[in-house]
């Protein structure tokens, strides 16, 4: 009887799991499926949960919209630049805090922790005023710099975890075998950091890619990024939901791909093998 009850419990749990899955996926599904529906199937109250006719018309509208490619390009350039710079600077700092004990280390780490929490939304006004006085509004490289403000602390913290998790013994063994400290780091630790660097880079990229308020306030029309274009997208004849959903889908695709890649890459940490034997 208790076996029966537990079997019933398992069935209920599985059913709940399916419901949870559907609830979390539905908004994404609705975005993508709307993007593929013809206008007639969108602008009707006779909603069909599955698209009956599939069209690429909405994607053509979104891509053909004024400036789409420029905004896409801006977003890509800014996110890639921020990622590269932040990971580079963070790699130095992360190595220092994970491999050395030095005076001020604890203070530095506490600072990184606190600084991650500063609400960027509150800094938009001074950033705007400062850049305006320096005549630097609406300049893409400057946007990159401002993004560093929130991407860098997070990147330092995350990378530090990865470096700290790599056994220092490997480096020491190399040094006993005659490698210099730099050589030991460069040839032994750095290659092992591959997964950590990839993961951290992806997180940094996603943060920059998603950023909204700084681009909204510090950039003007032609230098906007994709989220601002999307967030303020309107057409003369009311909202074009098909085009909007197609745009949202295109904008979301890189992040979703990255997220999926990330979990695949992360799983097989190289160092696990290195230490096992």
């Amino acid at each position: 009887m208790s076996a029966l009850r537990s079997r019933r419990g398992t069935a209920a749990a599985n059913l709940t799991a399916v419901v949870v899955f559907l609830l979390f996926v539905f908004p994404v599904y609705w975005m993508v499926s709307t993007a593929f529906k013809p206008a007639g199937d969108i602008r009707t109250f006779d909603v069909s949960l599955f698209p009956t006719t599939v069209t690429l018309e909405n994607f053509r509208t979104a891509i053909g919209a004024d400036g789409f490619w420029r905004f896409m390009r801006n977003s890509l350039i800014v996110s890639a630049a921020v990622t590269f710079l932040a990971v580079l600077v963070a790699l130095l700092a992360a190595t220092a805090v994970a491999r050395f004990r030095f005076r001020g280390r604890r203070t530095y780490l506490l600072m990184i922790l606190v600084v991650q929490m500063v609400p960027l939304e509150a800094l938009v006004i001074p950033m705007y005023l400062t850049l305006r006085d320096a005549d630097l509004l609406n300049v893409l490289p400057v946007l990159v710099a401002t993004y560093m403000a929130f991407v860098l602390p997070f990147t330092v913290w995350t990378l530090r975890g990865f470096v700290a998790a790599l056994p220092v013994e490997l480096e020491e063994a190399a040094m006993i075998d005659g490698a210099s400290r730099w050589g030991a780091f460069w040839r032994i630790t750095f290659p092992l950091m591959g997964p950590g660097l990839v993961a951290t880079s992806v997180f940094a990229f996603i943060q920059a890619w998603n950023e909204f308020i700084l681009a909204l306030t510090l950039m003007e029309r032609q230098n906007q990024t994709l989220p601002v274009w999307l967030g303020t997208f309107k057409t003369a004849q009311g909202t074009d939901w098909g085009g909007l959903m197609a745009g949202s889908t295109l904008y979301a695709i890189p992040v979703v791909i990255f997220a999926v890649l990330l979990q695949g890459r992360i799983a097989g940490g190289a160092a696990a093998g290195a230490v096992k034997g």
Partner: protein
Amino acid sequence: MENDATNRPPEEAAPAPTDPGPDAGAGAVAVAVDVAGTVPPAAGAGSGPVPPVSGSAAVPGQAPVAPRQRRREVGPLPYALVVPSVLLLVGLLGYPLYVLVRTSFQLLDLRQLVRRQTVWTGLDNYATVLSDSEFWAVAVRTLVFAAICVGLTIGIGTLVALLMRRVGKGMRLLVAAGLLLAWATPPVSAATVFRWVFDEQYGVVNWAVTRLTPLDWSQHSWFADRYSAFAVIILCVVWQAVPFVALTLYAALTTVPDEVLEAARIDGCGPWRAFRHVTAPMLKPVFLILTSLSVIWDLKVFTQVYVITRGGPDRQTVLINLYTYTQGFGVSRFGVASAAAVIMVALTLLVTVWYVRVMVRVGEEDL
């Protein structure tokens, strides 16, 4: 000679703190999920709720190796490595913070802005903000909003994590995949979709309500009433925030030994009591960290409100950051806006102090 690092408390369960980026609980929190049900990477990065099993750089069956002291005199090298990041942070965060505080003591309306005048007004801006009844309404609203979002996020996140513990591998992968998708959707996309799902004319929710219930909601406007408008915003924020919490808690749950739960069961604990008296206390540090992070993130929600309602109807869904934004970029009262922003930063700082204290007490690595 090596490892005279002092006796540290054993590494305990604590997720690596991660910043979600500009949007509460929605940005690039290091959630990213190993669908196989292992540790989220950043959480697994050195300080995972569990010694990462298949996480990034795991040493099987061993806590992540803490950095060790190798030499007493380390020389200038670590300082040289840290300096670039310090300089960048001082310039990119410290300086704007200084300008923010300075501006909060200035009269800076459109007139002064255009003429580039500096007019000091002492505490006038704070007096203006604190005597503005809208500010108080906004402040209370923001606190209530954050409380609801955090409660829902932690509550639902816990339930989903427990569910993932309960079901088999296939179902767990399914749930994790759903969470990953919700987490990975950029906030602007998410907000746009929620606007569409709750659209007055063609929204699928109105359609479903009309089809499935006797109500006719074919023209029901979710955004004409502040409560239902807020419901949509909260739903959107929570939908994106739950994955991080659920996956971190799931990873933490796997660290609770089966024997302990078994013992509780033999002693006559039902599932609820076992959770309440065994699991929850063991995971208290994780809960504390997740809660403080969620509070910090949900206090500063901006994007979702901006995209979904722009503060409407009748400015009834304006939260603190949108208030600041409108005071500044809307009506060009940058001094007043700065004063409001300073108050917002101070509030966040309070929560941050709590968060850092938890992190330190938990013995998050070797701070």
